[in-house]
């Protein structure tokens, strides 16, 4: 009898888009992923001493982290644990966040206050991959 009640309650999914139907349980709609962002140093009025590059794309990570992150994001097991804590034990503990997992460097040409010119390569200036942590 309970099975019949459950069947009545569950929305009948038309057979042809079952994968869509199940996807809503597996991954969030706006999943954690890398987003484009381009800025030019002239917008920040820093182009007087930053000679190159003219444009800089630091990118950023945004989106919800699914409950079962597992290998898909290269997340540590701790991420699943944190999720369980947040859901089951203490809602004050935040759910895992969508953050950069890897970066690439940036070369910058700037004018120093004494008028000398410096070319420098900085580490971790452009996000290239996201993860849930």
């Amino acid at each position: 009898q309970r099975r019949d009640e459950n069947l009545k309650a569950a929305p009948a999914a038309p057979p042809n888009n079952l994968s869509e139907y199940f996807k809503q349980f597996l991954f969030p709609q706006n999943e954690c992923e890398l987003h484009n962002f381009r800025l030019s140093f002239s917008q920040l009025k820093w182009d007087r001493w930053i000679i190159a590059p003219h444009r800089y794309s630091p990118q950023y990570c945004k989106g919800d982290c699914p409950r079962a992150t597992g290998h898909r994001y290269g997340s540590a097991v701790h991420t699943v644990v944190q999720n369980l804590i947040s859901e089951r034990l203490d809602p004050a503990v935040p759910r895992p966040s969508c953050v950069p997992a890897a970066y690439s460097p940036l070369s910058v040409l700037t004018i120093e206050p004494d008028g000398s010119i410096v070319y420098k390569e900085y580490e971790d200036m452009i996000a290239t991959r996201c993860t849930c942590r």
Partner: protein
Amino acid sequence: PPSQGWGGSDKAPGLVAAAADHVAELHPVLQLPTSARRGYALLPPLLKVLSDRGQRGWASEVPRLQPDSRALRYMKRLYKMSATKEGIPKAHRGHLYNTVRLFTPCSECRHRHGDLGKGDLHSVDLLFNLDRVTALEHLLKSVLLYSFDTSVPVSSSITCICHLSIKEHDFSSQVCPSISHSLAFSLHFEVRKRKWVEVDVTPFLQPLIATHRRNIHMAVNFTCLMGDPQQSTKLENPVNVALVPPSLLLYLNDTSEQAYHRWNSLRHGRKSPARGRQRSSPSGGKGSASRASR
């Protein structure tokens, strides 16, 4: 917001810091707590430069020494050779440096002596101030960079005899207050191909830069003649080369945390911050460790 780790983190969001600086300048009541300002000191050098400059630049037009236009042209060309349009460093064999600094001699010392009337002997006294070189920047190569403005017809060859002496002010000894090391060498080049002539002075400057000398004082005299000693043409009629005082170019390896170390990323598969530790494979960490070292 403070929770964003403004405090001591050296990875604090520098661009946001610069913007906060700007807001603080415009509305002093919004000054950040001193602890947050202390955090700025740990910003990656680029972002610290930006946030500091942002503050001064926006709030007050601080007079800034403008670089020499020829030097600027050279560094833009070096940038194009070293990075893509998006600013990604190019990986090629000879590119071991992650920092290149170009200094022009400070203006008051650019006096020339020696009689230019003869049209050939050029002697110039140069003083370079290296305050911007940090203790973590190690010298790989140093070069005197000459840009030749000469009326010599194109595709003629020039041979220059150069005499370089570095004056060290040795205050410890009263007898000879200044020691000078000198170096003589000849340069041969075709006018057509080069707008720039690089004179490698690394052996000379290495000890001075290694001891973090702030000021380098050198005298350079040049004699340039037409012809090519290899082809046993007699060196004759001195070339009247309008010699612009040289810039000093330092190729450095910045060993600080924020600088990009290509050999790290090439050899050890640089750890991404999110995967702080290598996850040991089921066959035990040894496998992955030996693979990483290979």
